[in-house]
């Protein structure tokens, strides 16, 4: 129970990685606010399991983010931990990618994280410190064909992590990023649809491409976030952590 008495906000907490992260932080003793864009049974379920609170807002809307964080702080107090986990991902060949949708990737992933950090900072400063874990992506490190928007947004998060690591480190607000490889999340079902194969087949293919021979489990990312939020990670700042089963070299 390394996080007893701590408060945490997890964006995109209704499913996938965010759900696993919220559950793990709660299991370590944290009080968790579960953000998602819209109310849903999935969010309610995570809130119930974490005994946390729902925090509904579209992170790409700065006013909505400010209102949401104010409400969370009213209920839980200033936040110790922010996990920027939300993501929007669409893929298309670069020149064919609809410009509005292209920018939607950037607005949600990069700007949304900026809005969240800006909103929680005053509270973390009042507490005299904080931990911010940004979920980036391996695509932001090595790139990915037909994912310029998503990869650019994630690479932007990586640069922002390094910069905020330097900028906020002196205030004991430690910003780090996780760039996971292929994880077993609902996104894989979308990938399967796109590829015209079954969900099982897409998982088998990705596993076969990974040196470790399997895709990652959301619980593995959640364990890393819990470590980053713990006292023992106090010297990690501005770092990009890459749990990816060895796929850093990219496919093939």
């Amino acid at each position: 129970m390394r996080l007893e008495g701590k408060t945490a906000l997890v964006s995109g907490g209704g499913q996938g990685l965010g759900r696993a992260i919220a559950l793990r932080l709660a299991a370590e003793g944290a009080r968790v606010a579960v953000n998602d864009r819209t109310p849903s049974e999935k969010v309610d379920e995570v809130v119930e399991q974490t005994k946390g609170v729902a925090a509904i807002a579209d992170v790409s809307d700065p006013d909505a983010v400010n209102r949401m964080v104010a409400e969370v702080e009213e209920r839980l107090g200033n936040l110790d931990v922010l996990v920027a986990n939300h993501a929007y991902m669409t893929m298309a060949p670069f020149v064919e990618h609809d410009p509005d949708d292209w920018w939607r990737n950037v607005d949600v992933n990069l700007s949304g994280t900026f809005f969240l950090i800006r909103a929680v900072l005053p509270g973390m400063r009042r507490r005299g410190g904080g931990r911010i874990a940004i979920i980036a992506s391996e695509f932001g490190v090595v790139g990915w064909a037909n994912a310029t928007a998503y990869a650019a947004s994630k690479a932007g998060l990586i640069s922002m992590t390094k910069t905020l690591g330097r900028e906020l480190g002196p205030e004991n607000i430690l910003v780090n990023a996780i760039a996971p490889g292929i994880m077993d999340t609902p996104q894989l079902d979308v990938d399967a649809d796109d590829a015209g194969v079954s969900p099982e087949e897409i998982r088998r293919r990705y596993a076969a491409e990974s040196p470790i021979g399997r895709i990652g489990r959301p619980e593995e990312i959640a364990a890393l976030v819990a470590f980053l939020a713990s006292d023992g990670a106090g010297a990690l700042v501005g770092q990009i952590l890459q749990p990816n089963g060895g796929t850093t070299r990219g496919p093939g």
Partner: protein
Amino acid sequence: MNSTEPGVGLVTGAASGIGAAIAKLLAERGWRVAGLDLDSSATELSLQADVTDRTAVQAAVDRVAEELGPPGLLITAAGVYRQLPVEDIDDDTWRRMLAIHLGGAANACWAALPGMLARGEGTIVTISSELALAGGGNDAHYVAAKGAILGFTRSLGLELAPRGVRVNSVAPGPTDTPLIAADSPSRAPDYLATLPLGRLVTPDEVARTVLYLVEEGTYFAGQTISPNAGAAI
């Protein structure tokens, strides 16, 4: 993946500093820890050997296997540090630095790996340095050796991931250990002020990072985690 559960672990450089902190924390977490160092270590099985001597390291690993069981965990933390301007690094000093850091890690891996591979599981964490990521000054021999550990780790990690052995590295920043002398520039207020966190890393913080990799870092392969107080970002 059973290798995350406490078993037998071997820590090189266990007599002092980061190695000692890692050995102590692993023991607290239920591991049966053997320490290999030139000096005696406060471990369940203290073995004194020079990590540059492949035969001696093999003999030490054999003794661990006999007395505690074959090690499923290896931490290579043995190291020395001495600042020298590049023109003062003579051949012996250069080779010795490589022999201790890169050779020490490789010797321990050669000795411990056959057992791990036979069982199809194991965990190895090498200790590199933040200086291998960002470079230093007056320590080209040390940084070359620590950088070599990163390349070694990355390739070994990819090579062995399909065979159930996880190999990763921890690259600490300037850490409050005897390796940094009392009058070292690394302890000077002027230097510490250049670090985003304004302080040295504690040995416990390095040990906690290693422990995370050992207990829960099951999707890392060939990676480096650097708790460095912001020295290398």
